[in-house]
């Protein structure tokens, strides 16, 4: 069932692949997708390296219900997926959602809500935020406690959990009103956090967020005042390794 008022902006990242496959499994597809295509050959933040497909099979042994949206094919390019699903899409050769062509495209679309799944490390600028569209983003961390970057590694170190929270983006990073949030236990294979479990947790929260919208006919907020918490920065590799290797 295409959602007539919901579109998506997507770089071809593990997260976008997880989102589209989860939305498909739950029969709640976006009406239209703007694909941001990396014009260079470099691997961008959020894109798994080519070698990543080697570890995919390990996931089939992970049967925890809470991680069900982590069972996605991270090797399938989103253009292939969009064609298979019959979703209309346009490709714009940029890695930056703030690119003028992207802004023009969003402005001209009828959908009022865009699921945001661009490349990592990019912040939405004033031009795009002033379009009178809503940008639905799922942050990889439990808000408002864990704002910023790589927060799931920090929460694993602090409390042995991961998290994901859906928000509408505003000018403050990770400070938009919280629609839905969920905590997850640490996954069986913590080597796959970057490209599988982080994406899987976000996909599960995205599905729940959109299903609630369909159910209630409006966006209900779990926490309108997304205040307080700590802002985290990219975790140092030594701490990342401790989070992955931790036995307790």
């Amino acid at each position: 069932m295409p959602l007539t008022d919901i579109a998506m902006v997507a770089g071809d990242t593990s997260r976008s692949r997880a989102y589209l496959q989860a939305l498909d499994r739950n029969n709640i597809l976006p009406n239209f997708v703007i694909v941001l295509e990396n014009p260079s050959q470099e691997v961008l933040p959020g894109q798994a390296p080519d070698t990543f497909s080697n570890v995919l099979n390990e996931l089939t042994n992970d049967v925890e219900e809470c991680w069900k949206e982590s069972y996605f094919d991270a090797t399938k390019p989103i253009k292939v997926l969009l064609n298979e699903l019959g979703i209309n899409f346009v490709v714009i050769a940029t890695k930056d959602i703030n690119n003028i062509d992207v802004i023009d495209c969003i402005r001209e679309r009828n959908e009022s809500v865009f699921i945001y799944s661009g490349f990592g490390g990019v912040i939405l600028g004033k031009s795009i935020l002033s379009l009178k569209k809503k940008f639905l983003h799922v942050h990889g961390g439990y808000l408002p406690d864990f704002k910023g970057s790589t927060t799931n590694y920090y929460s694993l170190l602090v409390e042995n959990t991961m998290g994901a929270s859906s928000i509408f983006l505003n000018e403050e990073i990770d400070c938009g009103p919280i629609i839905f949030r969920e905590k997850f236990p640490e996954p069986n294979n913590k080597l796959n956090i970057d490209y599988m479990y982080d994406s899987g947790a976000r996909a599960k929260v995205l599905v729940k967020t959109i299903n609630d919208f369909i159910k209630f006919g409006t966006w209900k907020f779990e926490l309108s005042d997304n205040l307080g918490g700590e802002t985290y920065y990219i975790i140092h590799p030594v701490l990342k390794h401790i989070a992955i290797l931790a036995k307790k």
Partner: protein
Amino acid sequence: MSYIYSKINRLEKPHNYMYTPYYGADLLESYESSRVQVINRFIDSRNLSFNEDSALLHELLPVFLEPFSSNLNVYAKNFGLLLQKIRIKVTDKNINKTDNVKGKKVNLNDIKITESVSTSKLLYSLSRIFLVDVHNLNAKSWLDRLVQRFEVTKKIYESYLPGFRQGKGCNELIRLYWLLALTLCIFYLRSKEIKYLSTLLKLNDLLCSLSESDLKDNIPQHGLVLVLITELLSIKLLSNRKGISFASY
């Protein structure tokens, strides 16, 4: 394996730490080995001179001893003993406190976001406040601003223009990177908030990537060893808590 994060000059070529690969326990061992090499190089160095920050270092030393000397962990005890040695070496006779510390006392309330801020004065003020009050919200806000500036730009400027966004002056003053590392050590020891340990690791990667002569000219004797030992022991204790043990030597 070699520890790549401090292998090349990180003032000239900063590392962004995005999506760093997983190397298993080897990474932790290479990290420890790399830090221990630098510590060993500087622990008994006679060449380091006392400088304008020696008095501050002397004033702050007790806070570094607290968590380590009383800890039952073997590593903590050893590092505690090492710190005691350093304390003995940094003696009052070498430091003219009146000239150095008192002359630099700045009330944090006199530092305003609407005005230009001297980074050195701010760090002196913060380190002293955290010595006695880690819950001071105004001081934590200022520390967070400094951490944000370093994390985003990987630079610390001599001063910041009103609003504390745009840096002004030199951004290669090694002393300021060390002073921030020292302040983060105190804050982490008192608060145990891991985000500050992450920034401390990055600052120490940068310091360890610099030449011996640059470090000697800009950091007071034992100042570098102190922040490295504090960081390394904090990592050891965290690893132990999480059920991981590693040793490179």
